[in-house]
């Protein structure tokens, strides 16, 4: 019986305890409230845990930002981007015009580092939904104007708090400040008749590039062309001035010497000299700079053997590959139609480039077509064959030599069968 009453008593006291606790929370709601009314109020930006030293900096919490006034439109970041989330369009400003000289212009003529800006950046967008936070675009920037916000760059731009948008399109950040009028104006001054049409054309080309079949993996790039060229379907450029393959000069070890040599060679080529004259001029220039060693002289002498392509011809810029001949052929036709008033020029330009043993040790950049060997079924045999072919080609051997060597090697391995034999026969032919 006493247990019964004690039970009731305990019930009351414990209930009272509980209600006192909740009342304490109810009456102190102002102090105890834990809710942050998010869109209206925000926590202060977390200053720690992002890292202020480069190696600690966790860029995944960050986003790319561009100080567009410092951007010279060099496209380095666009090329560096592995996922193509950076899109830049530039218009070359004529020499006699200074950017930002017109009243009310949004542009500046120089960057904060004092570099003259020669390109008008008409478009600079970064799609942060595509960005993979690799940070690769940050390093090539000569003006250091593209960077991940926050962390070490805190003083340039604070970190974005939420980095949240209502629409996926909101993640495309537009950094360009040039107005349409400015773009039009500069385009007119630069002699670009219709920059919009030009852009449309470029977009169309890009679309084509996406639609076109992707070539085999071992794409060998043209030594002259910068990396970022789309794999196929790049249209033939109509050459407006004489041009020469200066890859030979890549063999010069000293950087300064190489630069000097190339500069002199370009100058000479533009001036319309012949190959021999070019070689002489280069030699003269090097002598003047005190960089002419016998070794270099040998290399430069090689220039005299190289043809100069005269204006009016069309040059195949993109990589066409023997292994995907059907496709490439089709492409070439299509491109030829698109390309231009001029009929397709010297048809042997392409094969020449590929089969000709690229003169000297070009640091592995010799033009080797390995795709022809893709038909070999056995993986080991294929690898061996390719290794030999590329080695032989680099050393200046003919495909015939290569085929011979491959044959011996594969016989040793016991991998030489009729199939491989047929392929090698094709290689020789």
């Amino acid at each position, binding site marked *: 019986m006493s247990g*019964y009453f004690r039970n*009731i008593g305990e019930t009351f006291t414990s*209930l009272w305890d*509980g*209600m006192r*606790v*909740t*009342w304490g*929370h*109810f009456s102190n*709601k*102002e102090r*105890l*409230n*834990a*809710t942050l*009314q998010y869109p209206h109020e925000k926590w202060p930006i977390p200053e720690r845990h992002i890292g202020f030293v480069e190696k600690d900096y966790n860029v995944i919490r960050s986003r790319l930002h561009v100080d567009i006034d410092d951007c010279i439109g060099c496209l380095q970041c666009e090329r560096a981007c592995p996922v193509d989330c950076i899109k830049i369009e530039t218009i070359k400003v004529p020499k006699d015009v200074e950017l930002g000289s017109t009243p009310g212009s949004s542009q500046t003529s120089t960057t904060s580092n004092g570099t003259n800006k020669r390109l008008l950046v008409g478009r600079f967008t970064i799609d942060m939904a595509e960005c993979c936070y690799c940070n690769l675009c940050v390093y090539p920037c000569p003006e250091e104007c593209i960077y991940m916000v926050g962390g070490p760059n805190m003083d340039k731009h604070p970190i974005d708090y939420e980095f949240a948008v209502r629409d996926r399109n909101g993640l495309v950040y537009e950094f360009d400040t040039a107005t349409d009028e400015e773009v039009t104006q500069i385009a007119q001054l630069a002699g670009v008749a219709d920059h919009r049409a030009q852009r449309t054309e470029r977009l169309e080309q890009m679309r084509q590039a996406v639609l076109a079949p992707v070539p085999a993996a071992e794409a060998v790039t043209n030594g002259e062309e910068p990396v970022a060229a789309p794999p196929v379907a790049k249209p033939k450029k109509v050459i407006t001035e004489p041009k020469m393959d200066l890859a030979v000069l890549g063999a010069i070890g000293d950087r300064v010497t190489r630069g000097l040599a190339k500069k002199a060679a370009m100058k000479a080529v533009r001036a319309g000299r012949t190959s021999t004259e070019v070689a002489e001029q280069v030699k003269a220039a090097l002598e003047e700079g005190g960089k002419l060693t016998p070794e270099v002289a040998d290399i430069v002498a090689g220039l005299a053997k190289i043809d100069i392509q005269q204006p009016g011809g069309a040059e195949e810029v993109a990589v066409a590959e023997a292994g995907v001949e059907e496709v490439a052929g089709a492409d070439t036709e299509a491109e030829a139609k698109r390309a231009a008033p001029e009929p397709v020029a010297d048809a042997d330009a392409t094969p020449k480039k590929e089969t000709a043993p690229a003169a000297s040790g070009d640091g592995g950049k010799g033009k080797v077509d390995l795709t022809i060997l893709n038909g070999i079924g056995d993986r080991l045999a294929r690898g061996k064959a390719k290794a030999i072919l590329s080695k032989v080609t680099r050393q200046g051997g003919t495909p015939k030599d290569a085929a011979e060597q491959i044959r011996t090697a594969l016989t040793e391995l016991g991998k030489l069968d009729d199939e491989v034999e047929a392929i090698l026969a094709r290689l020789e032919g």
Partner: protein
Amino acid sequence: MTSFTDSLIELLGGLAWVPENAAGIIFVTVSVLVALPVFLFMTLNAMVAVYMERKVSAFMQDRLGPMEVGIFGFKGGKRFWGGIGQTVADAVKLLGKEDTIPGEADRALFIIGPFILFGAAFATFIGIPIGYGLVISDFNIGIFFVIAISSIGVIGVILAGWASNNKWSLYGAMRSAAQMISYELPVGMSLLLVVMVVGSLQFHDIVMWQEQHRWFLFHSPFTALAFLIFFASGVAEVNRTPFDIPEAESELVAGYMTEYSGFRWSIFFLSEYANMAIIALMSAIIFLGGWLSPLGGLFRTFNLEQSWYFLEGPWWGVFWISIKAIALIFVMMWVRWTWPRLRPDQLMYVAWKVFIPFALANIFFVGIWELLLG
């Protein structure tokens, strides 16, 4: 003593353009005119109470509750009391929802169920005054009428649970029925002692007695205890935490309401909050002096005859009874967000082994008290 219904009938009967012997027309008109304010009151009550519940629960859990939705661009206070339009939005959403009926359910009973519960709550309001003479219909058997009608609700609950053809619903309905029937007894017994002292079942007489003497809460220790028992049992009858085993979200999903959605579910909701208001109003009238001002006794001792000074009168009466009822509703919410749910056996233990013996003893002791001191 007049009531709303009496006045309406008199008014309509006296109008020149109302034809003679048009009993039917008057009947229907009066019914509609009488039902309308009750319905509006129930709706309004549910909306305000839901908002209050959300806010109270939020504050007790260090949250803010609804803060965004406003009415006509007005959100309410900035810091704590925002989001006043939330329940309106919820109601609109609820009415726009698809009304599903399970394929295996007993259609007729499934549809009738919520309306029986609603009807009980609705009819109960008819007998409850919210001020002197402010009652839909004044019954001689006031308290008894309220108890009788509110005992019907349980049928609606059982039918809803059974017709859903869902085992959780049936469990919920059975628990609910057992609980409601059990807790009707302590409710009746605690009211009995008030009736015994006053000698009348009418709400008006009870309040008059309190006006002449004192509030029943302070009548004697036994009535104070009776108030506790009545209030706790009332909370149990409304199926609110800690007595919410019929709904018990964590074990029975939502008890007898599991299969309901949209409009029918909102009917359940409406009835539940109406029942809350009924319990609060009844406690206020019977134990806390109804529409009497708490300051009344104080000022009367100073012989201040002007009623204005102690804030009495018909409209102040409405104010005071609302304050008391809202305070009691707040206590219900406070309790709900503090205490955990009882087990079914604990629930029955509390009803049969604690409340009922104490209520019986109360009757006895109050009788002695009245004999010796009354």
